[in-house]
């Protein structure tokens, strides 16, 4: 392995040694000095420093284990100051003088610090290691790059190898077969026989469209014995619009596509036009857009001459639809570098964000060259339309109308707040001037902030005032000249010294020392302090401002009669106008730009603005009448000139690099990009036919999806750590073929699926399993499990519900009723993706996905067994076949729907046994009814029993009631709530809260019955058992009564009724009656979990959720078919 850390260090050393003063000192240290170093200093370094600054780790780029490394220093340069040794960083750090304190966990003992100090003042002598001089250093990183460019397979030019001769020429249907057969010949393996036709059509359908064939299509294909039947099938599928949906989705994995931004805190989380990118991708595959053009559009469509058709602009979603990282520009840029380099080139360039790549020939300069390209772009003011909206579409009109309203809400609010802010600032001009003068020369930000806070003014507005005053000190003008003069006076005896200045002011009526007459007037008398000076200015400004406001006010009066009267633009008096300009000029600190409103405002205003922005964004992202726009980017007016961020830290500036392409992919020194950001130049470099990576990477991706394994098994890493190609010549043959066929992806499919290699059976035979279990040599086809999308689409196809419409905004596929659209149109939620989608190994949209994981976990089975989605599909299949009466025929139909084949006789009998069972249950047992019931009836005092108990059936607004309307004319206000309720109009309509004993036992009841109104004649309450009659009776009228009862024996199912009956009249009969029931635990119940407490208030609830309709036997049967391996795997 190439030891890069070493190379890197040496390379830097070569440069630094020439200038390092230490190096020259170290040339001839005295033996005593060296002895001192070895005996005293080195042990301290070894003991305390080299763990983090040695061979294993080089924190901050610093090594303290060899002379050369030490001389070089860390990222911020040498740690020794040769000119002034005592000011060396090394000493600063170990003496804990600055921010950085070393060693981190504990300061060195004073004696050791003293030793280091002494050594540093000696010039830090350090013996040079033998043989380790900079001169014979290993090659530079740049040399490493050119060496790897020559030696590593993926950087070498694509080599169009001749098609090899093989053992069985009969087997060769496509050049691919020859390359595969050579490998098999060498390994002594034979290719597998061709799969049967039913398997082939199913395989082709899924591979090319992600959908199963219909029963009729299968039959037609099987019976068509013409040799061209297969080719025609391939052509039909490639021409299907569903082809683009399948292959577009593979590309969306590469493009780490999602419809949301990730964690955003308070922003709207949806990308408004993400779907136009998705649809662009699908369309591009369907139209077989040449792959090179596809790339160029995705990187730089905005820089192309597009003509009429603006749809390619949507391609830029490739760059823009990544995670937003709470809008951190560096992380967004890193994500873009990653998606471009791994996605298109198979290179892990983002590894070089903090340092040169540890393995691959990618320097940190390469990274920042690309960084500069992406940093030189920005979001356009408004996303461009990609199709002209149909302006007479009412939906579009509605969208526009609401949009205008919502935008106006935002701008009106901002305008209003802006005016308020300006008024506030001008009204506080005194505080600003006085405080600004105080803050001058105070470099302590916190202190100035405190000053601002104390004066109740805004720090962000104060600082420009301070700047203005500071500038006036240097080059005073006719207004601030007196200020500058006064400010020059010492604080002591200010008043005395000011007198002379005052006289000078009064005399300065002309020449280059001229002072504005109004200002002169202000200083006719001498001020006693600087504060007074500022206050006089403030008064002058306030007076001027009020003159101006008067003028505006009188204008408002004038236009009542003279509408044409011109709006005043200035004060007539020029001197006054000059002063007015101090607070009204465009660049005045008091004239805060509207764009600064947000940052200056307090949090509550910011919250309101954010909320209004969110409203606009949400409307744009969700209204169905919105016209399609592209999530595009444009070049910034001034490109960003990149430099290296040392250790990836933005504040840690390293050397400049131009915007340019990767060095390893450039023939000589890469040429700096000149056209704007350089995106188009980069796109062209990526798609240049002599770029050895682009075609190879794409060809490998297509191969991966057809054969289940890439020729290079690390599809997004073609670097030194990636896998080597299993068939390098085949890879190059395909890459050449691809480029020569005008980068046509459909031609690639053709050459692959028409091969014999592709058409092999997926059966694992013993010889193959023995010699090549991974199937690297392609001695069989791979059996593939349906991925999430194909699975979902197949379930919907089987149920006959699938909606095959194309394109458009994303739909919800996570909740029932789920959209019947294809899964590719489902909303991809980047942040909180539904667990079941993740469980099925859907591509993580957080980073580019080279290939899908293939996990098998019980959570997948749970989804298939229990989710409403699958259950409803099974139900639909059951219904779909319900008209078929014969058992056999119905089973056969189900088989054909799910598997496109007939069942075998054995299968038929097994399945019949399942449907012919007579022990089907009608769904799961419903949960037992709760102990509390709600009803009404009458208490019969003679029988001591409740009569005519009727359930209250309607639950509304937290209230059980008898009818939909409340109150009800016939029976009045009868109701039960969690606290109490109201009886009806007669004693036959007493409200009854019933408790049913769940088991035999003894209960204690505690409760309070209360009539709270000051009107009416009160109520009567009874506690009645259906077994033992009246247990307690109570009368309340503007009063309350305790209704406790103890030690009551109850039998299972016995009812205890709490009857609230009206008195003679029924008005004002609202009552409250809450009760608790405590039941003892039966003696023999150890270990059982039994409820022992009931509280009428806490347990109060509406009706239990209604149970879904149970699955019929046939639907259960259909569900089983959907769960099988046969349904879920493609042979």
């Amino acid at each position, binding site marked *: 392995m190439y030891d890069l850390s070493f190379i890197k260090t040496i390379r830097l050393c070569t440069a630094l040694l020439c200038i390092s003063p230490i190096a020259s000192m170290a040339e001839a240290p005295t033996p005593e000095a060296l002895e001192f170093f070895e005996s005293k200093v080195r042990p301290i370094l070894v003991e305390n420093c080299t763990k983090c600054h040695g061979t294993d780790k080089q924190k901050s780029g610093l090594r303290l284990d060899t002379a050369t490394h030490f001389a070089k220093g860390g990222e911020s340069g040498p740690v020794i100051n040769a000119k002034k040794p005592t000011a060396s960083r090394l000493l600063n750090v170990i003496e804990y003088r600055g921010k950085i304190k070393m060693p981190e*966990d504990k300061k060195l003992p004073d004696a050791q610090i003293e030793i280091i100090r002494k050594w540093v003042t000696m010039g830090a002598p350090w013996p040079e290691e033998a043989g380790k001089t900079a001169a014979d250093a290993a090659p530079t990183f740049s040399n490493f790059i050119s060496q790897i460019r020559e030696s590593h397979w993926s950087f070498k030019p694509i080599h169009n190898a001749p098609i090899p001769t093989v053992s069985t020429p009969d087997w060769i249907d496509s050049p691919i077969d020859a390359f595969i057969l050579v490998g098999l010949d060498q390994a002594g393996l034979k290719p597998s026989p061709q799969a049967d036709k039913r398997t082939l059509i199913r395989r082709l359908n899924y591979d090319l469209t992600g959908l199963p064939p219909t029963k009729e299509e299968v039959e037609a294909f099987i019976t068509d014995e013409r040799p061209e039947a297969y080719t025609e099938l391939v052509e039909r599928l490639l021409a299907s619009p569903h082809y683009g949906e399948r292959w577009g989705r593979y590309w969306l994995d590469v493009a780490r596509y999602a419809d949301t931004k990730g*964690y955003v*805190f308070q922003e709207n989380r949806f990308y408004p036009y993400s779907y136009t990118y998705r649809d662009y991708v699908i369309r591009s595959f369907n139209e077989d857009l040449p792959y090179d053009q596809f790339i160029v559009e995705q990187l730089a469509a905005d820089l192309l001459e597009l003509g009429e058709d603006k749809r390619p602009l949507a391609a830029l979603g490739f760059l823009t639809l990544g995670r937003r990282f709470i809008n*951190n520009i560096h*992380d967004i840029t*890193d994500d873009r570098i990653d998606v471009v380099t*791994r996605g298109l080139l198979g*290179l*892990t360039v*983002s*590894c070089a964000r903090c340092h040169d790549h540890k393995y691959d020939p990618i320097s940190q300069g390469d990274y920042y060259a690309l960084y500069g390209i992406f940093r030189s772009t920005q979001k356009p003011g408004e996303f461009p339309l990609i199709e002209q909206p149909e302006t007479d579409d009412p939906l579009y009109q509605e969208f526009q109308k609401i949009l205008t309203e919502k935008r106006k809400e935002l701008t009106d609010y901002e305008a209003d707040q802006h005016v308020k802010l300006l008024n506030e600032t001008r009204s506080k001009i005194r505080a600003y001037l006085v405080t600004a003068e105080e803050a001058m020369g105070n470099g302590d930000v916190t202190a100035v902030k405190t000053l601002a806070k104390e004066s109740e003014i805004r720090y962000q507005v104060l600082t420009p005032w301070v700047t203005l005053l500071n500038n006036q000190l240097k080059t005073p003008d006719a207004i601030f000249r007196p200020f500058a003069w006064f400010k020059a006076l010492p604080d002591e005896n200010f008043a005395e010294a000011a007198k002379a200045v005052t006289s000078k002011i009064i005399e300065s009526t002309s020449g280059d020392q001229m002072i504005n007459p109004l200002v002169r007037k202000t200083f006719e008398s001498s001020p006693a302090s600087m504060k007074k000076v500022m206050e006089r200015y403030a008064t002058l400004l306030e007076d001027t401002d009020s003159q101006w406001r008067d003028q505006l006010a009188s204008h408002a009066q004038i236009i009542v009669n003279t509408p044409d009267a011109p709006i005043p633009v200035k004060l007539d008096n020029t001197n006054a106008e000059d002063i007015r300009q101090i607070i009204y000029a465009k660049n005045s600190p008091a004239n805060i730009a509207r764009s600064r409103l947000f940052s200056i405002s307090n*949090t509550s205003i910011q919250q309101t603005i954010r909320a209004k922005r969110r409203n606009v964004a949400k409307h744009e992202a969700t209204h169905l009448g919105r016209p399609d726009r592209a999530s595009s980017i444009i070049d910034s007016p001034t490109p960003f000139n990149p430099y290296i961020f040392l250790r990836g830290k933005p504040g840690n500036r390293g050397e400049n690099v131009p915007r340019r392409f990767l060095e390893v992919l450039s023939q000589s020194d890469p040429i700096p990009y000149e056209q704007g950001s350089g995106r188009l130049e980069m796109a062209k470099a990526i798609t240049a036919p002599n770029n050895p990576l682009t075609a190879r990477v794409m060809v490998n991706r297509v191969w991966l999806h057809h054969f289940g*394994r890439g020729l290079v*098994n*690390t599809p997004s*890493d073609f670097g030194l*750590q990636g896998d080597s190609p299993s068939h390098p010549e085949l890879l190059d043959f395909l890459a050449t073929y691809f480029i020569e066929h005008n980068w046509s992806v459909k031609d690639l499919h053709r050459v692959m699926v028409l091969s014999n290699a592709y058409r092999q059976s997926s059966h*694992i035979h013993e010889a193959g*399993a023995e010699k090549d279990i*991974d199937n690297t040599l392609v001695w069989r086809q791979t*059996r593939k*499990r349906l991925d999430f999308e194909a699975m979902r689409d197949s379930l919907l196809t089987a149920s006959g519900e699938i909606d095959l419409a194309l394109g458009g905004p994303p739909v919800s596929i996570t909740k029932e009723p789920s959209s019947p659209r294809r899964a590719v149109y489902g909303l991809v939620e980047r942040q*909180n993706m539904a*667990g079941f989608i*993740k*469980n099925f*190994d859907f591509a*993580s949209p*957080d*980073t580019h996905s080279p*290939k899908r*994981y*293939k*996990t*098998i*976990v*019980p959570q997948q*089975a*749970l989804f298939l*067994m*229990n989710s409403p989605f699958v*259950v409803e599909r099974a139900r639909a299949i059951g219904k779909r076949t319900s008209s078929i009466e014969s058992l056999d025929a119905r089973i056969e139909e189900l088989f054909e729907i799910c598997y496109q084949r007939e069942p075998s006789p054995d299968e038929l009998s*097994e399945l019949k046994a399942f449907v012919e069972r007579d022990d*089907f*249950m009608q*769904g*799961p047992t419903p949960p037992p009814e709760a102990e509390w019931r709600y009803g009404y009836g009458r208490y019969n005092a003679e029988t001591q029993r409740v009569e005519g108990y009727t359930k209250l059936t309607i639950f509304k607004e937290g209230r059980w009631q008898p009818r939909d309307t409340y109150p009800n004319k016939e029976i009045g206000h009868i109701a039960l709530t969690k606290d109490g309720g109201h009886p009806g109009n007669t004693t036959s309509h007493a409200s009854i809260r019933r408790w049913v004993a769940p088991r035999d036992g003894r209960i204690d009841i505690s409760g309070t019955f209360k009539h709270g109104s000051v009107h009416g004649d009160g109520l009567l309450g009874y506690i009645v058992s259906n077994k033992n009659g009246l247990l307690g009776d109570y009368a309340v009228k503007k009063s309350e009564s305790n209704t406790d009862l103890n030690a009551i024996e109850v039998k299972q199912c016995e009812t205890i009724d709490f009857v609230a009956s009206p008195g003679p009249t029924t008005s004002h009969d609202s009552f409250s009656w809450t009760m608790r029931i405590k039941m003892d635990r039966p003696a023999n119940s150890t*270990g059982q*979990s039994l409820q022992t407490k009931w509280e009428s208030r806490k347990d109060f609830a509406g009706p239990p959720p209604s149970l*879904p309709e149970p699955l019929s036997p046939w639907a*259960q049967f259909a*569900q*089983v*078919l959907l*769960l*099988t*391996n*046969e349904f*879920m795997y493609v*042979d």
Partner: protein
Amino acid sequence: MDHHALEPDDFALTRRDFLQRSGMGFGLAGLASLMGASPSAMAASGSSAVSPMIAKQPHFPAKAKRVIHIFLNGGLSHVDSFDPKPILDKYHGKALPNQNLRTERPTGGAFRSPFKFKQYGQSGIPVSELFSKTAEHVDNMCIIRSMYADVPNHEPSLLLMNCGESRQIRPSFGSWVTYGLGTENESLPGFITMCPGGYPIQESQNWQSGFLPGVHQGTYIDTKKTELEELIQFIKNKYTANADQRKQIDLLQQLNHRHQKARARDAELDARIHSFELAYNMQMEASDAFDISKEPEYIRTMYGNTTQSRQLLIARRLLERGVRFIQAWHGAGQPWDSHDDIEDRHRKLAGECDQGIAALLTDLKQRGMLEDTLILCTGEFGRTPTVELPKPGSNAGKINGRDHNHYGFTSWMAGGGVKGGHIHGATDEFGYQAVENRVHVHDLHATMLHLLGFDHEQFTYRYAGRDFRLTDVHGNIVRDILA
């Protein structure tokens, strides 16, 4: 031997392939232990395919087999709980001698703790009244008073604490652990994260699987809900009686076996057949695990009756059943973020969880599980010893709370191989920043991985061209706290 971390394909290979091909970045030791991976589990399943969740052995014998992280999200004030600073009484209302460190918001003078501290246990470690019940276990607790993180903001600090990186997409601690160790009970998710009432700040990124397979992502459970099917998605079938479902599964397996007969040697088909049996069992297992009414009354009384204590009791039942990693968040959002009214708020919050935490420790001890269960209790950072000053809009401006503080805070651990009755490190005399034996979050992670049997520098996953680890390029094991 090439590097070879797990590749997507590996998850579907036969055991033999798997052993032939992968070192999992563990190096040879890891490979050897993989070969010994729980053979009984494989035999029982009758399957030769490797499930990503199968129990695996770490690099070296582990002290801890499972983890529970009690997350006091929002930031527990250390000077009010485990790190007493009596000197704040003296300075109360006055400026500290050194300038205040820069935190998220402006802070003013010193702010004494409104809570009383008392010494507990043999070790005599002082703990405030906030955690008086938990403190009864202080002799089992290792209190790290010298924690520090990178920035004083919730989002990055949460991600740092959970994923070892504050901005970019990285797998969370729990997903690393299930990736490395699998789970001891495949009928339950291996990594469960509980948070009552909704998500914490930064949402599901806190338990993301990042670039590891999606199955390693934490299974989120809203413990405010009580219905099982609301807790774990699709755990119950509402349409088909259980007995019927069993017959469905039987028929399914019949069809599957017939299908498989013609497709010999495909371990993946086998694995999928097995997964339905696991799922079927999971329905019962999960119902049972989450049903705390099955606990005897004295246990439920011991835990108390708050959402947090109920959640800790569920956690104990899950740990007992072999769940590998559990996070118990205090609540949605950032409940411990007491910028105002710290006295009332911290008292209320501690009141909600103190009894439950104490009960959990008692309970685990009684069951002999404390030895090999690692308990971590921490927020994402601590709070300032100085009072927070009003800032328009950002707090109520009551001048009786504390700001975030990442310079120094306290985390405590118990069980699984950590020293009990031990205090590690110290903050300065005011509690502003860690000064003695400082422990960065990366160091905490390195130490926890060590306790779980992993060398944090060797425990890697190859992705995008390089080997990633939980501790990135950082982390030192804090040996002083190992028992």
